[in-house]
């Protein structure tokens, strides 16, 4: 495996992230918006869910949101790299494209985990107690979820010829995936036809896992969540590498 290439792709994305404050700011602004404005607004009408109030209930969901937005955005940067030429510089180098795809995967997951961890600063405000060892479990869980999501993003980026399709992706894939993952409301109250979609959505198991770690409540056993996420990540990363290898640039 070409670790130096993976490292370079990873390092480059991190440097770009650090130099570009807007992503950091919006990653802090977005949870405030959802958690405090939407959350506080809806709290009275939801009442208690499995012993937690609404803002507490959606807190793991907000972390999942940070993961999905950051992951997809990171992967989509491949399209920018293509449009602005840098991708050619990498692809003409004597390195396997698999290493390039994996580098993107690691970079996107690293940034996602960082953004997700950042959300934890809001935990005391919504009164979600976090033990330090929970953070240690949370990080690999977030990494697992992110890796799969970046994989989805890479597949999209390799299939998409321009970034004009970006809005379409957000509306038809990212938002539905987020809403139908049980992040914002309990699955049990959904009509059964929607439940089917929710069960197919891999992010559902990610949200369930996060909620299990943070609040101790869940719909599925933790082992099932992890299994499904592992299998899904594996399949997605393999297909991402496949599609990325196949494209002509």
């Amino acid at each position, binding site marked *: 495996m070409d670790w130096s290439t993976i490292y370079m792709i990873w390092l480059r994305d991190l440097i*770009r992230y650090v130099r570009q404050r807007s992503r950091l700011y919006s990653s802090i602004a977005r949870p405030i918006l959802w958690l405090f404005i939407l959350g506080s607004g809806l709290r009275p009408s939801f009442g208690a869910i499995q012993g937690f109030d609404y803002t507490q209930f959606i807190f793991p969901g907000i972390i999942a949101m940070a993961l999905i937005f950051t992951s997809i955005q990171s992967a989509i940067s491949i399209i920018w790299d293509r449009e602005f030429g840098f991708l050619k510089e990498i692809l003409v180098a004597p390195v396997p494209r698999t290493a390039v795809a994996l580098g993107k995967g690691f970079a996107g997951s690293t940034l996602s985990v960082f953004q997700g961890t950042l959300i934890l600063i809001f935990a005391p405000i919504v009164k979600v107690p976090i033990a330090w060892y929970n953070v240690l479990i949370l990080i690999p869980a977030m990494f697992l979820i992110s890796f799969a999501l970046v994989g989805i993003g890479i597949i999209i980026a390799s299939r998409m010829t321009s970034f004009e399709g970006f809005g379409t992706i957000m509306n038809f894939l990212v938002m539905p995936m987020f809403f139908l993952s049980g992040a914002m409301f309990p699955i049990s109250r959904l009509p059964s036809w929607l439940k089917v979609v929710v069960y197919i959505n891999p992010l559902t198991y990610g949200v369930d896992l996060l909620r299990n770690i943070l609040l101790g409540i869940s719909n599925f056993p933790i082992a099932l969540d992890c299994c499904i996420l592992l299998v899904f990540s594996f399949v997605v990363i393999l297909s991402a590498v496949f599609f990325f290898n196949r494209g002509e640039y």
Partner: protein
Amino acid sequence: MIKVEDLARSFNGLWAVDGVSFGVKEGEIFGFLGPNGAGKTTTIRMLCTLIQPSRGQAWIAGYDVLKQPTEVRRSLGIIFQDPSLDDRLTAYENLKFHAIIYKVPRRERKMRIDRVLGMTELQGRRNDLVRYFSGGMKRRLEIARGLLHEPKVLFLDEPTLGLDPQTRNRIWQYLHDLRRTKKITLFLTTHYMDEAENCDRIAVIDYGKIIALDTPENLKRMVKGDIVTVHTQDDTLAQKELGERYRVVVKRDSSGLHFEMDKGEEFIPKLVKDFSMPITAVSVRRPTLDDVFLKLTGREIREETASDKDRLRQRVRRIGGMR
């Protein structure tokens, strides 16, 4: 160093490159000259293993482009037609990342980076973000980057496109220096006629086919004699008389009447003495590659307007700040 046999590539049924064959010797400066859309970039992309040829074969430094892509990539450096730097990184970072993916040994990295920066006179800008560079500086940095891993063959796709004449000259200076000091082989494309004269040999390419391949001198010899330009009070009458008296094909445009004539200098005194009407101005010049292209294709190589995609890209680049 480069060998190409019947290389071709089609896009949706249209042949962008339609069976080109040529060879380039070690240490040679070889030029591809042709108008926009002639197939120059497509040829380079095939040689660099970025796209698959539809038919034909090619070898770079002895390696088969189809069967040994990794070895081919290791042997070549490329300066793309469109910018390919990461403008959010500094010059140094761009070079360092290139060194990493090309596996330049760690202890050599700094020395080599310093050397290529020195050669392109960019030492002073080493730690500046590339987005604040001028077009010429970016181009120089790309050349520096292309040389960093010491390739055997350097491809340059329109290396001076869009640069002012002064910067163009400077880039040519680097390229000549490079050829003098290293044994590197240069393959470049251009649609600037005057620039092609810097090459050892030129392939003239039009509609995906090579229509002539020779040294600039030999190509210019294809145009018989010199180009004589004449101005008179009545160019219409003069055009007729010149054609009848000297049996030459006379072309007329806003700058006067032009025709080919053997030993132009000796012809002028005769012309001035014999001609029936007063001549207001006359000049003789050696043929240029422009004249050759005109003769070969019946068209002039002209600067075409930017395609829609280029225009879109420029617009995006302008709003690129929001990335």
